[in-house]
């Protein structure tokens, strides 16, 4: 036991001595939470639009004011002719052009019908169609004003309730994803690299010929990263509660227990990678390209899983972070208890056992 503690202490020294690695261990979670919390949003705000107003009359002016007042749009300039629209799009910044034909108000009031043209820069299809929808609803509002809200017969009204996240904040979706990402990153990447490093440097040989049990050597490598991950997790949770105003609706103990489970899964994965590779570069690239990118893609926090083609959805089931993400969302946001996440937990436990068995089978106490 004393020997084991000495080894754990050695590993801690290795970690804390290297300030540049610490930047990644602790800087990255903080940077990610801040960026995801404040900078990144799928909402569309302040999109630059241009107005091409051939009419310059009352109705076109009023619609322009209404568009300007909405915080989805910021009116960049008024153009004089159609030709300028294409130039404005090509120069980059403009996302939508609104064109009013001549005699707009006159047609609207006397012929009872008038046309507006919306031209979207659909190079980004989502922004394009969302902006078209927003502008359409603003123009419809104006039309309602003109009608002076004559009440129509047989009307169905709707009442929409937004569950869990009434302000429609982006963070609610991102924070559980960042937690999964950071835990995977720290555990898989760091463990695998630190074990392979000893192999590459030749110090592994020294450890293996010592009277110390080789399995405990590996275990002592995992302990510091387990501890660091728990610290990281607490930092993320504190930041999201106090900085981003995200409540933890469920039980904190359960959240930590489930997180520890994912940490063990990731450590087992890191172990497996380190047992199958010989150089740091390969271990790194395997963890980075083979694990982090799938984790980002297939947890479902950046891109909706249900939109993916079937084969990718099947692959996504193999990514541990996907299940963890579901668990965290259920506990943190929906406030559910263990009874509703036992299936996901069971899957994670199964994966962990499998990974541990395989990596211990592959672990050789003799080199070469």
């Amino acid at each position, binding site marked *: 036991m004393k020997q084991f503690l000495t080894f754990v202490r050695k590993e801690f020294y290795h970690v804390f001595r290297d300030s540049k690695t610490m930047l990644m*261990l602790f800087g990255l979670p903080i940077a990610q939470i801040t960026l995801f919390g404040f900078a990144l949003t799928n909402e569309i705000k*302040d999109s*630059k639009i241009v107005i091409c107003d051939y009419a310059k009359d009352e109705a076109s002016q009023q619609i322009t004011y209404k568009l300007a007042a909405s915080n989805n749009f910021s009116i960049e300039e008024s153009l004089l002719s159609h030709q300028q629209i294409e130039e404005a799009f090509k120069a980059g910044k403009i996302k939508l052009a609104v064109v009013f034909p001549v005699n707009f108000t006159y047609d609207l009031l006397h012929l*009872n019908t008038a046309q507006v043209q919306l031209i979207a820069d659909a190079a980004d299809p989502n922004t394009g169609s969302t902006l078209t929808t927003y502008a359409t609803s603003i123009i419809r509002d104006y039309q309602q004003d003109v009608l002076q809200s004559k009440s129509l017969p*047989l009307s169905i*009204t709707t009442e929409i309730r937004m569950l869990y*996240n009434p302000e429609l904040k982006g963070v609610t979706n991102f924070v559980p994803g960042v937690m999964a990402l950071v835990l995977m990153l720290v555990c898989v990447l760091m463990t695998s690299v630190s074990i392979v490093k000893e192999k590459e440097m030749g110090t592994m040989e020294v450890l293996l010929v010592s009277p110390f049990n080789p399995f405990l050597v590996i275990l002592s490598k995992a302990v510091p990263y387990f501890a660091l991950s728990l610290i990281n997790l607490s930092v993320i949770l504190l930041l999201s509660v106090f900085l981003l105003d995200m409540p933890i609706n469920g039980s904190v103990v359960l959240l930590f227990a489930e997180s520890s489970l994912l940490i063990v899964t990731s450590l087992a994965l890191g172990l497996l990678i380190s047992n199958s590779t010989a150089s740091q570069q390969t271990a790194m*690239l395997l963890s980075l390209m083979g694990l982090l*990118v799938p984790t980002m893609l297939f947890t479902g926090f950046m891109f909706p899983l249900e939109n993916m083609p079937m084969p990718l959805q099947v692959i996504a089931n193999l990514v541990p972070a996907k299940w963890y993400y579901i668990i965290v969302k259920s506990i943190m946001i929906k406030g559910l208890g263990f009874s509703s996440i036992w299936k996901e937990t069971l899957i994670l436990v199964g994966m962990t056992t499998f990974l541990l068995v395989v990596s211990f089978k592959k672990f050789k106490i003799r080199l070469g």
Partner: protein
Amino acid sequence: MRTLKFLLRKEFRQIFRNKSLLPVIFVMPIIQLLIMPLAADYEVKNINISIVDHDHSPYSQKLISKIIASGYFRLSDYSNSFNQAFEQIEKDNSDLVLEIPKDFERNLIRENTQQLYIAVNAINGTKANLGGAYLNRLIQDYNADIRTEWIQPQRYNASPTIQIASSNWFNTYLNYSFFMVPGILAFLVTMVGAYMCSLNIVKEKEVGTIEQINVTPIKKHHFILGKLIPFWVIGMFVFSVGLFGVGRLVYGIVPIGSMGSLYAFLSLYLIALLGLGLLISTYSDTQQQAMSIAFFFMMIFLLMSGLFTSIDSMPEWAKVIAQLNPVTYFIEVMRMVVLKGSGFSDIKYHFLIICGFAIFFNGWAILNYKKTS
């Protein structure tokens, strides 16, 4: 010149000899370019809906079939009560609940107005917002159908209506992969370039072979050029394969802008990027450190580049970070030239800025690189 030739030969040999690294440089980016655009699809479709129909009338049936037939929604279940439907939301089986109250049909016709209740799982705010809006639009359409059933249409428009004609330029069919593929390709080239370059030099440090080079009469600039040129060539190669191989053949993206200005920009960008890799390598002693620093910056570059989320929607301070990010400019140029056919005059500021980055990173790295410790 002769020295440089020998150095280049050494570097290329070392790269092509490493059998575990080669697939990472050449195959990984291509596979990712094939998979990522399929996965990175923000389009909101397949919204699962639970319906609680207390009315069971012909009208409620008609409404339900209209919603299902629209293609946006997938019926997950009919529930008997709101609580039962809510459980489906808790289990993530459905995203949205539509509750049709009792006597929906009767109230609508007798009292001329009736309310429907919608509850949306808003954990993913964007999806919730759009899902709610789609459903609302369908209900309004349905409402208009009912009105025409009951009310004689008038001969001419009685009330002023504004007709809105909308058109989508540059990507008429709203194909999301057209937007993502150029951006993802730009990022993959960045990853390969920055990682490979920084790891390569640090490896020489860690293994100790850099000492051997330092004691030879090889000049500082020869050594640096010898390291940069191979990765510059690899970057160009990966980019071309991605653009013409994957982009053109798999996704059918035909760049409509000038290839000349795109490649001119790429070559400048790669110089800036490799300068960054060089800079990282001068600050680290082990591969683990280099990887940590490179990963830290790459992560921030990726998130702040406007690849996944729009820069316009960011707060002011974040826009400043995005403008200090070289990847932002490359992704912008890619999208402008490939999709919109922007010409050199449209991207001349991008050229100037990336020139600045190239001089800054390389200058700093060269100043910081010392032959003797």
